[in-house]
């Protein structure tokens, strides 16, 4: 880099008056030296890019804690995972979980935003309260709901009080519905964030537009469906994208509530990766990690394009 700087510095010192004329050519090189990029790029290269590249290598080996050598085995890991049904099952569970979280989180967030839209004292306090789960540890939230949803837990106690007869539903024990329950817990943790983003979106809608619609005789529902919702589109895009991609990478809530059970029906890819890693089956864990990477990358390309467009506007 210094060699790039030298030839520019010399003439600048001799010919002070021509500096202004030389600027357009100079601005891009010596005013913003490329070496400023190097420390950040070095960290990214070592701790982000290199492990990702390793993913593409070690997923095709027999790397494990049971032997010291590592040899190539081609597609064997994927064949094993596919033939046991784990690959497709976990992939499906992860995608279903992500979609459910995106739906619930946005539904709750939007409803809360509409409920707490006006700037009253009660509403402001409620908004702050709904943000507390967002800053809490997801693991802690998971344990709270594990206790709440136990057969002898708080929810059944409450329902038994309200309804006739004893309620003892095993909320976390159904091979079909537990995935929905854990997605609801995940959505509960993050709904405060979605709510705030929707509130910010609602604030950008001008009162004139709403007043005009009201004068035209629009009902509350029409006002929402035909005026507010279309104008909230950017907030919806952002919330859905972050909820989808964030929960694809989910772990904490599910690990704390079900650890992937019952019968593996809530085993997200990250739960599988953590479990097989703990068993010393590193290559299998890597193969699943690569699978997660590829699926998220496939989903993320449109998202990155969207974020970059947004950022250019900013």
């Amino acid at each position, binding site marked *: 880099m210094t060699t790039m700087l030298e030839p520019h510095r010399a003439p600048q010192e001799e010919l002070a008056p021509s*500096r202004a004329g030389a600027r357009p050519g100079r*601005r891009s090189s010596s*005013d913003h*030296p490329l070496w*400023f*990029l190097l420390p*950040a*790029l070095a*960290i*990214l290269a070592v*701790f*982000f890019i290199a*492990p*990702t590249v390793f*993913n593409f290598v*070690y997923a095709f080996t027999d790397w494990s804690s049971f032997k010291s050598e590592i040899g190539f085995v081609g597609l064997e890991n994927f064949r094993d995972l596919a033939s046991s049904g784990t690959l497709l099952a976990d992939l499906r569970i992860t995608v279903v979980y992500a979609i459910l979280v995106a739906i619930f989180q946005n539904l709750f967030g939007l409803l809360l935003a509409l*409920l707490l839209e*006006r700037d009253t004292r*009660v509403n402001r306090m*409620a908004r702050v309260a709904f943000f*507390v*789960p*967002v*800053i*809490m*540890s997801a*693991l*802690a939230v998971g*344990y*709270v709901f594990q206790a709440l949803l*136990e057969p*002898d*837990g*708080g929810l059944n*106690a409450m329902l038994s009080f309200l309804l006739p007869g004893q309620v003892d539903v095993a909320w976390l024990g159904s091979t079909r519905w537990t995935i929905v329950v854990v997605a609801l817990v995940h959505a509960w943790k993050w709904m405060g*964030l979605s709510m*705030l983003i929707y509130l*910010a979106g609602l604030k950008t809608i001008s009162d004139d537009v709403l007043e005009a*619609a009201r004068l035209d*005789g*629009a009902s509350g529902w*029409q006002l929402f469906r035909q005026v507010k919702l279309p104008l909230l589109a950017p907030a919806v895009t952002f*919330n859905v994208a972050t909820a989808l*991609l964030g929960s*694809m990478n989910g772990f*904490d809530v599910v690990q704390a509530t079900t650890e992937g059970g019952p019968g593996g029906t809530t085993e997200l890819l*990250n739960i599988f*990766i*953590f479990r097989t*890693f703990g068993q010393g089956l590193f290559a299998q864990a*890597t193969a699943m*990690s690569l699978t*997660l990477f590829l699926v*998220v990358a496939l989903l*993320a390309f449109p998202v990155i394009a969207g*974020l*970059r467009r*947004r*950022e250019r506007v*900013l």
Partner: protein
Amino acid sequence: MSAAPVLPVTAAPRPPAPRRSPRGLVQPIAAVTSVVVLLGVPFWLIIATASKPHAEALDPDLSPPSHWQLLHNVSTVVEDGRMLKAFFGSLLVMVPSVAIVLVLGSMASWVLARRTSRLLAAVYAIAISGIVLPPAVVTIVLLLRQLGLAGTPVGMVGVYCGMYLSTVIFFVTGFVRTIPVELEEAARVDGASPVRVFFQIVFPLLRPVLATATILICLYIWNDVFYALFVIGGRLDTLPLNLYQVASSGLYLQNWELIFSYILVMSLPLLIVFAVAQRRIISGVTGGAVK
């Protein structure tokens, strides 16, 4: 709006004042009810169970404890869960990660925002891809072993830096473009080196966006357990790691009063910070989204 003619009967004759007053009652009641049901129940469960004697906490129902022993449970868990060590362990990995990511990320963002070339556009795309792409958790452990950093705070800091540099670069690059380049040029004409221009002029101007990034990254790292389990699990105490141990070790199985005491104490620092800087945090976390 096309349906407007159908509705004037309900909408038009209503004078504004009476329309507001019933809603003025319904809305606050609905707001308070939603807080009580959605937040009050889980939070009451935490406080009530954390205060119960062991025998009563076995079934974590919503009943109040027969006698409150919150302090007793808290002191048990602070000791058994090594909470003090965990607190400092969490700080030990969080503070250097955030500092490194902010300084190095801003330096890179400055150049990425000011210079344009096809190569730099590609570098930028790769640099921000970490916002959405999941880190390769398994092979990162292999790499850390090869570097001799497995299980060390330095390794953990490196992993967090690799993960969250992209967030900083994304936020800051956009922000730098809004700063007029003339500010820098004046200093350059006066003979300031690029290093001085960056650290004395540009970096201080980045304060608002760096505040946002700091809040986000602190939240992520303070609450992270997944990556910590892979990199430093069993070697270093952090608050979420020790919570995981307390909750999953056989010794504490079903010891809800201890788990919830732990959660209560662990959430306290965050809640205090949140109470103090509530507006800042909320605008910080949503700021990135609404812009």
